[in-house]
């Protein structure tokens, strides 16, 4: 004999009265797999409450984290990819770009803006990995070059947030030369004595590592980020053996002497502010 008896058979609630769990209410950490409220994750700067894993976020989130009150002036929003080589593999390049634009609502793989961080002006260029793997083509190179120009003109620091698989194959030689272009601009910034901070996030590889990402006066990274020149798969195939554990993580790169420090995302804004304020000339008049 049962405790309860079902009086009506089947589900009686009409479909339009059905109550679903709102989408994105819960977040499952992609590292430790534990579940937390998405709101909690957001409040924790998109890092896991339990294991500190830094989820991949995009330019919109970084701008919100770094610019005061999320106020900034975005630059060069009209730049979009052309198809100089009429590149076609299994899909045409313009088709790939279009799909990426629709999926992400972005124009290309980097956004550049200037505004105030804890009251101090700076220029930030931030890559969006969701747009064709954050790959660097002519648009990315040009936008970063112009962002550096802005920092040069306004004499304010430049922060580059890299998250990219490297150069964009579909623009072949043009992509390659963006490495040269961005490095040329950074040479000018360097000569002008303006601080350049490069933040490397997960993942930063290929032509991006081999150009602007490694050229910071300060190279810093988020914990656990994959940072390298060649991708792990390529290295494994080349040398024919397994890679050591923790190879090409931010911690590994720090240990080998190519990073200044690793910073938790929740401390990022204040750490950057402290660092930049220490570089300022105390005798200079505040304009």
């Amino acid at each position: 004999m049962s405790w309860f008896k079902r009086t009506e058979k089947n589900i009686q609630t009409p479909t339009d009265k059905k109550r679903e769990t709102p989408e994105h209410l819960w977040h499952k950490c992609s590292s430790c797999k534990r579940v937390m409220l998405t709101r909690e994750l957001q409040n924790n700067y998109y890092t896991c409450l339990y294991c500190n894993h830094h989820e991949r976020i995009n330019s919109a989130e970084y701008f919100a984290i770094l610019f005061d009150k999320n106020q900034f002036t975005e630059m060069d929003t009209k730049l979009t990819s052309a198809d100089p080589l009429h590149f076609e593999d299994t899909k045409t390049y313009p088709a790939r770009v279009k799909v990426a634009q629709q999926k992400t609502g972005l124009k290309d793989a980097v956004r550049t803006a200037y505004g105030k961080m804890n009251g101090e002006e700076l220029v930030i260029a931030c890559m969006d990995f969701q747009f064709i793997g954050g790959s660097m083509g002519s648009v990315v190179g040009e936008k970063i070059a112009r962002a550096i120009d802005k920092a040069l003109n306004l004499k304010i620091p430049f922060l580059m947030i890299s998250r990219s698989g490297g150069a964009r194959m579909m623009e072949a030689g043009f992509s390659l030369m963006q490495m040269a272009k961005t490095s040329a601009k950074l040479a000018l910034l360097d000569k002008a004595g303006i601080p350049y901070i490069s933040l490397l996030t997960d993942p930063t590889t290929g032509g991006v590592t081999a150009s602007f990402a490694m050229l910071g006066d300060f190279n810093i990274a988020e914990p656990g980020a994959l940072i390298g020149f060649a991708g792990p798969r390529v290295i494994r195939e080349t040398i024919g053996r397994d890679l050591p554990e923790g190879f090409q993580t931010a911690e590994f790169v720090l240990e080998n002497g190519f990073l200044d420090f690793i910073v938790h995302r929740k401390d990022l804004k204040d750490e950057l502010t402290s660092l930049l304020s220490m570089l300022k000339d105390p005798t200079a008049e505040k304009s």
Partner: protein
Amino acid sequence: MSQKRHPRESYQNIAHAHTNSIKFVAFYQLECMTSYLDFEKPIADFEAKLAEMKQIASEKKVDLKDAIGKFEEQLKELKKETYGNLTRWQRVQLSRHPDRPYSLDYIKGICEEFIELHGDRTVRDDKAMIGGFGRIGTQTLLFVGQQKGRNTKQRQMRNFGMANPEGYRKALRLMKLAEKFNKPIVTLIDTPGAFPGIEAEQRGQGEAIAHNLREMFMLKVPIICIIIGEGASGGALGIAIGDRVLMLENTWYSVISPESCSSILWRSWEYKEQAAEALCLTAEDMKKNKLIDGIIKEPLGGAHTQAEKMYDVVKKAILDQLKKLDKLEVEERIAQRIDKFCKMGVYNEKD
């Protein structure tokens, strides 16, 4: 005299030797050792037949002069047709031809004197990247370049022309020396890429290349970069920032090799021909897209068929460009160098 102190390397195989005394041997070896690419098969057959005819003519003392002459004429036509209509992939193949002159061949073919310098002063001497001061007439130049090997042992020693971070740092060290002593720089690019290995990552392959890019823009002396074989990606660009970037006719220069491109985009190694087409990686393509400054013509059939002639052409190109670059003030030259690279790229900018 310096060459006596630094004995010629044995990789300079006899087919490339150019002293009169061993010309015959060289010719003989060339006959036996010339390697043909797949699309050169008809030419190879033709040449074999021609050799046979010549042998018969001399052995049996028959006069085949007319026939041979006609045959040679046809061969010339065939060569013109083959090499005049090369596909992009065939140019990639030619750029990797095993008989093709490498950096040290060019340097020794161009300079009257060359002193090789070693080491990055930090880790070790990278054999995949060579460099040193060379002299043409009264002009001293600094040469750096990736170096490939001729045989298995040397290929291994040269790591197939794939430099490690210390190679890029060695190159920069030498270029800074050139700046100090006010000598122009010539870089010779021939690499399938920077080496992807554990130690390379530990020692900062990305940083080493990035650093070179930035520093080369600010060097006060003229820089001429010549792609003599393969120009693969960042590994090539790491020594290819210059006032003039020139490509030999049968070389390639791009962001990735056709094979790797095929494996990533098509998920198979089989589409390398299509990838080569799509990448537009030949000298002609690169010039058309304003990504390089000029093309240096090669002898029919490729640089290796008449190496001596090739060295002369390259030497002349270097001296010509140098004359033009010498006329510019230092600041002007650097500004032009930066400006040139900053103009590269194609994009849309409209509402």
